[in-house]
């Protein structure tokens, strides 16, 4: 079966219609590229054909490249993957360049056949790079269609000529949002930005494309960069204006990517070097940098975690297979505090009927008003419509009456973190709802198995742990208690799919997976301050690791109060084995000083009257003096990294985590774990188990057993094995 359909009409206009069989969205495969190449050859060779339209048989044009193509190119090249990628990508350039030159005479630019791209809807990645090689891009006026080059978001860059063509078409400055930020826009905006040439009514798309082909003159199909006297918009790098652009862009990208994301830097190099040579040379330059990024371990790790595995988890990779669809129709949310209000909002947004319960009506109403405020803001920013607001608010019933929960198929409890309070709610609610209703708790600290004891139906009892703020955080951590059954897991997963977030499923243990890793990270940062490491160095090291916020800022954001609470509870539970006394010395003192964090406008940082961070608090240094001798930043980085990564490994060893993919994706989405690394396990793989174990040994000797090498890692070090080698099969089978 072909991916492209080819036909020629009575007027000699060929239509190459992209329509990948059995898929709702076109993606480019290796074989399809060859197919397209063949059709272009036919168009150019057939004297009866005057020109061609490249379009789609689906409602959208294309969603991008099948990322497996890249893996295939690498694999086919055997022991020289860079060569395989280079040759493969140059071949792609050849096809696109053939479209662009369309048989024109090299010198006179005459005699070519017009080829137009007609885009009915979405055109992303290669789905825009092919049109960019055509002589004109006409899009249907479809406000929902996204057009752009989002490659940078998964750690690569537009490498099929998109970078070179866009810079030459728009200039480096204008192209920057599309290339460096992966901005996608609707057709009308794409037209005004100069990304595409024309927008027409959807029903006129094909006719207009044909009209253009039939009327195109020789000069209409010559790209500016193939015509004489081409000058780059905004100036080439050593043009006075261009120079400022490139100097500024180089610094900005370096600063923003903290030096850890290779793609943006490589993209910029491709643009810079390409801007100074003829077009065909520029494509080769782009290809060299693209290969450089594809060969970088960070790009494969990012693609694997942020694209392939994230999508797999969203599509139910770990969902029990035999359970029928558990889509939620009516959800009851217990507790209308910040978490409950957020849960109600995202559930109603997903079209569910929501009952939001609190002890008194005022609290319940306040919880519902959270949705109203959110949607008002959305309307102001044109992200939502008054109709949507009406529908969402109409779906939420704020009440104190538990009877309203009747008919609910999922309960999410988000009341005060107290076993007794929760048990009472569980009992009361179970008395109202049906036997089929699944009961979920949003606890972040209490064991699920313990809470399930209050339930009549512990197999229908589960943890659904949201992160704050609910509407922004993309991860949901699902926790199975000892007796949690498959249907409860399927219910939770189907619910998370409905609210369009990414789930991970873990087993019950203290702090589950995410908080288990975050807490030691924060503690390690605080501990270092106590040892006399300069707070600026602690935060700076986190910055170098590509963490969005350093550990001390993270404490301020989540509040010192919460830290104290968790510390006290953990200490009570662990008794003499409690290892974090040195940390408590600092946070308990901070709490005594009233420095509770951002909420108090005073924490590890000072804040100005508007609540803006104004720098590290000098008082910290007065109490915990900064030592004259400061450690090497690499040691600080290793401590910050290992403190969380080793917890992830232990979670895997203990079976809390069942799948490393969940460990990696969850870490990035839940607490911004160095996204460039692909997650804790990917990072360890980059380091290599032998070196990682060596680092652990050194840290253990210097700082204690919290860094001791887990047996699993030790074993892998001895066998020279990586996590993704060892666990890939089991992950696939899961």
């Amino acid at each position, binding site marked *: 079966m072909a991916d492209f359909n080819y036909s020629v009409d009575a007027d000699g206009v060929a239509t190459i219609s992209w329509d990948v069989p059995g898929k709702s969205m076109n993606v480019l495969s290796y074989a399809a590229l060859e197919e397209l190449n063949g059709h272009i050859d036919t168009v150019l060779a057939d004297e009866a054909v005057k020109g061609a339209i490249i379009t789609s048989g689906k409602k959208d044009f294309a969603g991008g490249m099948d990322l497996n193509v890249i893996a295939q190119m690498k694999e086919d090249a055997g022991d020289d993957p860079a060569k395989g990628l280079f040759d493969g990508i140059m071949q792609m350039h050849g096809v696109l360049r053939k479209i662009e030159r369309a048989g024109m005479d090299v010198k006179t630019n005459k005699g070519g056949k017009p080829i137009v791209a007609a885009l009915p809807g979405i055109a992303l990645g290669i789905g825009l790079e092919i049109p960019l090689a055509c002589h004109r891009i006409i899009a249907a006026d479809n406000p929902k269609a996204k057009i752009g080059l989002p490659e940078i978001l998964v750690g690569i860059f537009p490498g099929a000529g998109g970078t070179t063509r866009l810079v030459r078409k728009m200039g480096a400055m204008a192209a920057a949002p599309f290339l460096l930020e992966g901005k996608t826009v609707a057709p009308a905006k794409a037209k005004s930005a100069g990304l595409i040439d024309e927008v027409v009514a959807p029903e006129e798309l094909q006719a207009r494309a044909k009209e253009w082909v039939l009327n195109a003159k020789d000069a209409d199909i010559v790209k500016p960069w193939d015509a004489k006297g081409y000058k780059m918009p905004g100036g080439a790098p*050593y043009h*006075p204006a261009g120079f400022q652009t490139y100097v500024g862009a*180089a*610094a900005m990208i*370096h*600063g923003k990517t903290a030096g850890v994301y290779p793609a943006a830097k490589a993209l910029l190099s491709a643009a810079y070097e390409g801007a100074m040579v003829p077009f065909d040379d520029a494509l080769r330059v782009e290809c060299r940098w693209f290969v450089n990024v594809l060969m970088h371990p960070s790009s494969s790790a990012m693609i694997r975690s942020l694209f392939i595995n994230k999508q797999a988890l969203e599509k139910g990779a770990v969902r029990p297979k035999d359970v029928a669809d558990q889509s939620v129709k009516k959800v009851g949310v217990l507790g209308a505090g910040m978490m409950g209000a957020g849960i109600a909002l995202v559930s109603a947004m997903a079209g569910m009927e929501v009952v939001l319960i609190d002890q008194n009506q005022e609290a319940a109403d306040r919880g519902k008003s959270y949705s109203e405020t959110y949607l008002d803001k959305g309307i102001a920013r044109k992200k939502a419509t008054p109709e949507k607001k009406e529908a969402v608010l109409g779906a939420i019933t704020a009440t104190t009456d538990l009877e309203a929960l009747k008919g609910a198929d999922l309960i999410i409890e988000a009341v005060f973190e107290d076993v007794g309070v929760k048990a009472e709610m569980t009992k009361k609610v179970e008395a109202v709802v049906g036997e089929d209703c699944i009961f979920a708790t949003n606890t972040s600290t209490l064991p699920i198995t313990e809470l399930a004891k209050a339930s009549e139906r512990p197999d229908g009892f589960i943890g659904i742990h949201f992160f704050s703020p609910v509407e922004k955080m993309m991860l949901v951590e699902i926790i199975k208690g000892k007796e949690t059954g498959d249907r409860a897991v399927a219910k939770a997963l189907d619910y998370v799919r409905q609210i369009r977030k990414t789930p991970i499923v873990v087993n019950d243990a203290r702090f589950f997976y995410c908080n288990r890793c975050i807490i030691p990270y924060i503690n390690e940062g605080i501990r270092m301050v106590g040892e006399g490491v300069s707070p*600026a160095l602690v935060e700076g090291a986190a910055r170098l690791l590509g963490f969005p916020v350093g550990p001390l800022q993270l404490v301020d954001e989540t509040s010192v109060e919460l830290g104290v609470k968790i510390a006290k509870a953990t200490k009570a539970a662990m008794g003499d084995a409690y290892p974090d006394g040195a940390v408590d010395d600092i946070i308990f003192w901070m709490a005594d000083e009233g420095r509770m964090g951002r909420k108090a406008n005073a924490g590890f940082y000072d804040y100005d009257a508007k609540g803006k961070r104004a720098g590290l608090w000098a008082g910290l240094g007065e109490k915990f003096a900064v030592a004259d001798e400061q450690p090497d930043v690499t040691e600080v980085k290793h401590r910050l990294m290992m403190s969380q990564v080793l917890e992830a490994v232990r979670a895997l060893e203990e079976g809390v985590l069942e799948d490393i993919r969940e460990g990696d994706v969850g870490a990035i989405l839940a607490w911004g774990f160095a996204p460039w690394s692909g997650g804790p396990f990917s990072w360890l793989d980059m380091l290599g188990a032998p070196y990682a174990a060596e680092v652990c040994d050194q840290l253990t000797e210097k700082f204690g057993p919290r860094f001791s090498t887990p047996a699993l890692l030790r074993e892998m070090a001895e066998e020279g094995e990586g996590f993704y080698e060892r666990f890939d099969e089991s992950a696939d089978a899961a």
Partner: protein
Amino acid sequence: MTDAYIYDAVRSPRGKGKKDGTLHEVTAARLSAETLNELKRRNNLEGHVVEDVIWGNVTQVGEQGACLARSAVLYSDLDERIPGVSINRFCASGLEAVNMAANQVRGGAGDAYIAGGVESMSRVPMGSDGGAIAADPFLAAKTYFVPQGISADIIATEYGFSRDDCDAYAVESQKRAAAARAAGRFEKSVYTLRDQNGLAIMSEDEMIRETNMQTLGGLNPSFAMMGEQMPGFDAVALLKYPHLEKINHVHHAGNSSGIADGSAAVLIGNKEFGERHGIKPRARIKATSKVGTDPTIMLTGPVPATERVLAAAGMGIGDIDLFEVNEAFASVVLRFLQAFNADHDKVNVNGGAIAMGHPLGATGAMILGALLDEMERSDRETGLATLCIGSGMGAATILERV
């Protein structure tokens, strides 16, 4: 090894390097040629008397392009058999020219050289020659490139110099320069620049000004905007210096070197050269050095360059009687004083580039001449000149009177 001596050193007055500067009307070739002519006049340099003219010049485009050194020789009254070579070691170009000349003499490649340099910053703007280190994304990232002003601010932050420290240093530089000019201490080197009709255009430095802490305190930091906002060079600096919380932007127009036009030349030769021409050596060039440093903080080169030149000379810091440390930015000199615990009374005693300006390609030769003049005036035996250099380098020279 043959000894290399300085026979003479001359310089033009330094003009403000802007459109309203006195030297703005004078071409770079002419400004160079007038200095070469002055040296020729004072030392009777007839015929093919020197091996080469080594000419420091940073922005080698436009009228400073196409080997300005050779153009300058041909523009001047020097014999056309004398060639010329333009060299660029950024701010130390003038000193590097001297060092290269001295080392060629020491190595036996000819008896004598003219070394020096020129920069007409008002006519050929700094940075107008482009440069990959700033614009090439790969190189800029590899070197954590930030502009020099940011680097100077990193020095201040890293080594703890406050805005007041820098301003106080600047006030002192102005005071010293004004006093030195009033006392005629520059007259030995500075010649009156004349036009083609013999009319005087300029005879004294024009940038020295009276200032005080209050005036300087009113100036806005020059590099805060590019550091903190667009395009955000501080973020790059903090990646290289992760232990710093933020960069303290202390430098401004008043405590940084002034943009200037000017030219300077030094006559260097072996003993026989002087004997043959009946001129007396004024000092021996005892040792030279150049060194690369971290390109991000960029301007700390004077410290390792000094350590290196001292080692080459077999001397200690205490053996040096007088220092010239180029005042590119106040923090550069403050760092030098701090690193060697040096006495400010021995350093830049007649002011420096903060007061008089910094014509990039010429300054190295100018401060060496200033050092020599002051060694003679105050009867000191040894002197050391050093400069910080763009892209992270340093250069130094030790002189010894004979």
